[in-house]
């Protein structure tokens, strides 16, 4: 493991309300760089809300969340792709907008590795293939922090294994990974910390053996 472990995300007295409903309440927690975290919990436990707060999609009602990196790759749980655009063109445009340095040839290579026809219209792809495109747009970038919200949705067993391999490769590169999931058993070989959520709070944190 990397010897220069630093905090990459720090949460301090964080609270989030939707209307009068308190959906997240974390007193203190920090995510350390170069570790892999699994966020586990039932629906509505607060996992996705925390992720949205990390990426600044929503604002905290109270408290603070400090993210010590500008470079985040993110796979959302649900996503709408545009019509009338080839998979390759979509990913190339996205890479150019994000400006992390991924090139068109990187896009072509990744699409080939995941078995996706680069000339196919993105909305003609199956659900599993679209999920792969979402994963590609995240892993193609050289980010410091990778956040995956239910990344195995729609993937067949082979692709799930491929994804676990991707996580292993990212770990080897010393990247910080946060995976939001209901299925911790798939990640048994890769996680460093299991973070259990219950009723908007972190109920338990287990370190991997």
């Amino acid at each position, binding site marked *: 493991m990397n010897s220069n472990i630093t905090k990459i995300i720090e949460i301090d007295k964080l609270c989030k309300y939707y209307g009068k409903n308190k959906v997240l309440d974390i007193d203190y927690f920090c995510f350390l760089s170069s570790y892999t975290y699994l966020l586990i919990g039932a629906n509505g436990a607060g996992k996705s809300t925390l992720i949205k707060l990390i990426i600044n*999609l929503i604002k905290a009602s109270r408290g603070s969340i400090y993210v010590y990196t500008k470079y985040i790759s993110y796979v*959302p749980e*649900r*996503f709408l792709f*545009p019509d009338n655009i080839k998979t390759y063109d*979509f990913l190339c445009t996205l890479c*150019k907008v*994000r400006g992390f340095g991924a090139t068109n040839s990187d896009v072509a290579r990744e699409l080939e590795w995941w078995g996706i026809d680069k000339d196919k219209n993105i909305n003609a792809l199956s659900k599993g293939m679209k999920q792969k495109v979402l994963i590609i747009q995240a892993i193609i970038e050289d980010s410091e922090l990778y956040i995956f919200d239910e990344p195995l949705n729609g993937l067949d067993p082979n692709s799930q294994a491929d994804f676990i391999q991707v996580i292993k490769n990212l770990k080897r590169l010393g990247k910080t990974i946060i995976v939001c999931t209901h299925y911790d058993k798939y990640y048994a070989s890769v996680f460093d910390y299991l973070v259990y959520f219950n009723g908007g709070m972190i109920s338990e944190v287990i370190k991997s053996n």
Partner: protein
Amino acid sequence: MKLLNLIKCHLSYLLSKSSITIIIIVNIILFIVYITNALALDLGSVKEAVDNYYEASLTMTRIIFVLLSCFITSNSFTSKNDAYLALLITSGIKKEQYYLTKVSSIVFILFINIFVLCLLYLLSGFIFIKGFVYDTRFINAFLCIYIIALIYSLYTNLLITTFKNLFTFLLPTLASILTSSLAQGKINIFKKILFIFFPTTSPSQDSLFYSIYISIALLIILIVTNLVLYVRVDKRSE
């Protein structure tokens, strides 16, 4: 370059199959309206025919184009069509940058569309009305419709950001129809104040009720208000 790619990204979402289909249908409908008006109103002198053609076509264009503009704006800011924000803000693109480029893309699409409608109007006039000549008031009238459509689209933007409901676009559309019908009658102080915030064209349709500067000021105020609201409001469902 990055900004251009961001606009390209917005356009790929804005020009979805459903949006393109609706835009094409609206353009065809308005072209048919222009042709029908040109053929049906070919009575009396050339001037009379041109004036009738102008009046009937422009009224219809204003109603339908405002409706289309409000729909495009509303549709582009629904949770589903705005979900790609999550992939962009994680790379350091600010919400302000995202919002302003998105609005610019909508403004661009609407400009192209009003330009096409203006061409269709002139084309149908030249083909179907004998003695039809180009007049700058046609361009002015279409520009007025464009500015009005932008203002009501920004009102739609306020509503969709606040209430997160696609159908909120109907309210500004109704407001625009209401103000244009109010402009036909006697103008009192209430109407004068109303037209500052809900602008409409003058009865001759080739100029705005107030100066263009008032409308530009209103456009700027609405863009800033929308921007502040957009940055503050949570994007809950992706």
